């Protein structure tokens, strides 16, 4: 655990780590198969397909088909990945995922890129800000939101070994690499990235790096902020969250996702039940996005380190009115 974040970070592609990990997996296990939907070059499953041509099935623009085919492959014992843009693979296919994967508990691995507003110039039709909520609402579904490239690679390997359905979301944009391939990773735990005692910043995806930045800024104001990386949004490591609530007394959650039903809601629900302290949720408000560059959009829609700092100050202020121990 570092006490200071190592800014500036390397900016890297989660998709590249995803592709490389899939190939490693494919080399190790002949049962690994991938189903794609006319986006195989973009999400980089084509690299797997070049290596193992008979194990990549590109079924065109038919994502419902893609999901059910992956389920059929899994039912026959294959380690089946299905991968495309989240708006197609998750939003367009919800009831197919529900019936063929979540209800059946078939161990399909849905790995979708192009999540969140950082999709950028393609605009609102392509920016899925609702996927964490959609997937965490499904019984039996495990939901992973890796912080960066190395953690995406870890998710590929962990998901392959996982017995049930998995959804993993990652980004189109290159984002700061804040973890390393040497760091431990399993499905379940929340990882402390930085210790602190005044407030906790709990984040997933790209917002982990934003929270590390925010912690630096808060440090300059004399505030000691703990940073938690929550790559497993479901099932949530509530023990680690509650420990942070007890020890710091105020929480900020941060995600590149709607505030309506994502990480923040999950954490707030856990906190409310067992140890209510002020929780401030940083995310995209209940609106659609628009075209723009990834980082412009993240600024405009409230996903900056400054937004996290402001939320931390609000949470700490509210702590004065917090219900007791």
């Amino acid at each position: 655990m570092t006490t200071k974040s190592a800014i500036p970070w390397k900016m890297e592609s989660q998709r590249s780590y995803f592709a490389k990990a899939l190939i490693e997996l494919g080399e190790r296990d002949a049962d690994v198969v991938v189903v794609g939907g006319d986006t195989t070059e973009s999400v980089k499953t084509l690299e797997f397909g070049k290596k193992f041509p008979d194990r990549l099935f590109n079924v065109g623009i038919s994502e419902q088909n893609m999901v059910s085919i992956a389920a059929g492959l899994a039912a026959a014992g294959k380690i089946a990945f299905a991968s495309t843009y989240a708006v197609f693979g998750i939003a367009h296919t919800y009831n197919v995922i529900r019936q063929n994967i979540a209800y059946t508990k078939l161990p399909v691995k849905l790995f979708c890129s192009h999540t969140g507003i950082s999709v950028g110039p393609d605009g609102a039709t392509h920016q899925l800000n609702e996927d964490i909520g959609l997937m965490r609402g499904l019984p039996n579904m495990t939901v992973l939101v890796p912080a960066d490239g190395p953690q995406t690679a870890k998710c590929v390997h962990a998901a392959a070994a996982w017995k049930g359905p998995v959804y993993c979301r990652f980004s189109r944009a290159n984002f700061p690499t804040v973890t390393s391939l040497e760091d431990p990773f399993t499905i379940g735990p929340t990882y402390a990235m930085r210790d602190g005692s005044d407030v906790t910043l709990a984040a997933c995806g790209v917002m982990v790096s934003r929270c590390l930045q925010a912690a630096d800024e808060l440090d300059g104001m004399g505030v000691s902020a703990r940073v938690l990386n929550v790559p497993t949004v479901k099932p949530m490591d509530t023990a680690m969250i509650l420990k942070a609530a007890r020890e710091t007394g105020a929480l900020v959650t941060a995600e590149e996702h709607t505030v309506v039903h994502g990480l923040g809601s999950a954490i707030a629900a856990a906190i409310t039940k067992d140890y209510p302290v002020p929780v401030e949720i940083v995310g995209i408000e209940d609106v659609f996005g628009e075209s723009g560059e990834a980082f412009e959009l993240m600024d405009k829609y409230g996903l900056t380190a400054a937004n996290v700092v402001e939320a931390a100050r609000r949470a700490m202020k509210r702590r004065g009115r917090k219900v007791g121990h």
Partner: protein
Amino acid sequence: MVEVSDAKIRQLEEKARLLRRHILKMTHQVQSGHPGGSMSACDIVTALYFHVLRVDPENPMWPDRDRFVISKGHACPVLYAALAERGFFPVSELMTFRRINSRLQGHPEYGTTPGVENAAGAEGQGLSFSVGLGLAARLDRKAWRVYCLLGDGEQDVGQTWEAALAGAKYHLDNLTAIIDRNGIQQEGRTEEIMPLEPLADKWRAFGWNVLTINGHDMRQIIEEIDEAHAHKGQPSVIIAKTTKGKGVSFMENVVRYHGAATSDEELQRALAELDEEVP
């Protein structure tokens, strides 16, 4: 092709009548469920479970078994009846259909009911699932085959045609789709709700080997399934012309029996009709 004796055909026809009686009793005891589409598919399902499919009731998850995927999930009474009579679970359990704490859900649940190969209920997903199974069998160089039972109402669903495209792309000759073409969906005649004809031409244009049969002629069902096996390089679809509610005179071709159980009095009349035919 192995010649099937007349005695064997008669035995299968008798089995189908037994399954029809189960369907009526199962839906009657709970006063819900879908008898009409279960009875239209009954002869097809009987042929599969009592003649065609290589399955082992003692070992339902036997890796080399043939797979029967029921895409028209609402017709699960016929599947449950066949599985019970085939020995996958006790026949007495059929009377728990749709009741609380039962393994026999209103629409099929995967992983709970021995012998059930897929979850279905939301229409139009089963053929894609079957394509996935067929691809897996081929990757593993296994001889097991996949049979998928579709309703004609499911021909309205876009995903059915997505699966049709994929089956043709991958030349899945280990996959046989069977369409229970009874001509009636929940709210009326298929040709009024959403016209499907010329259905065979559509499937042919999608690259499938198309066979058209009388779905209540046991010998024809068996022979045409054999014919589909023999066809290489393409998946096959058997369009089985059937009658909704087949086997009970007052239920045949009546839209209402898509999703309505019989009354006490109707059940007795229906059973009498089916029993009378038992030699």
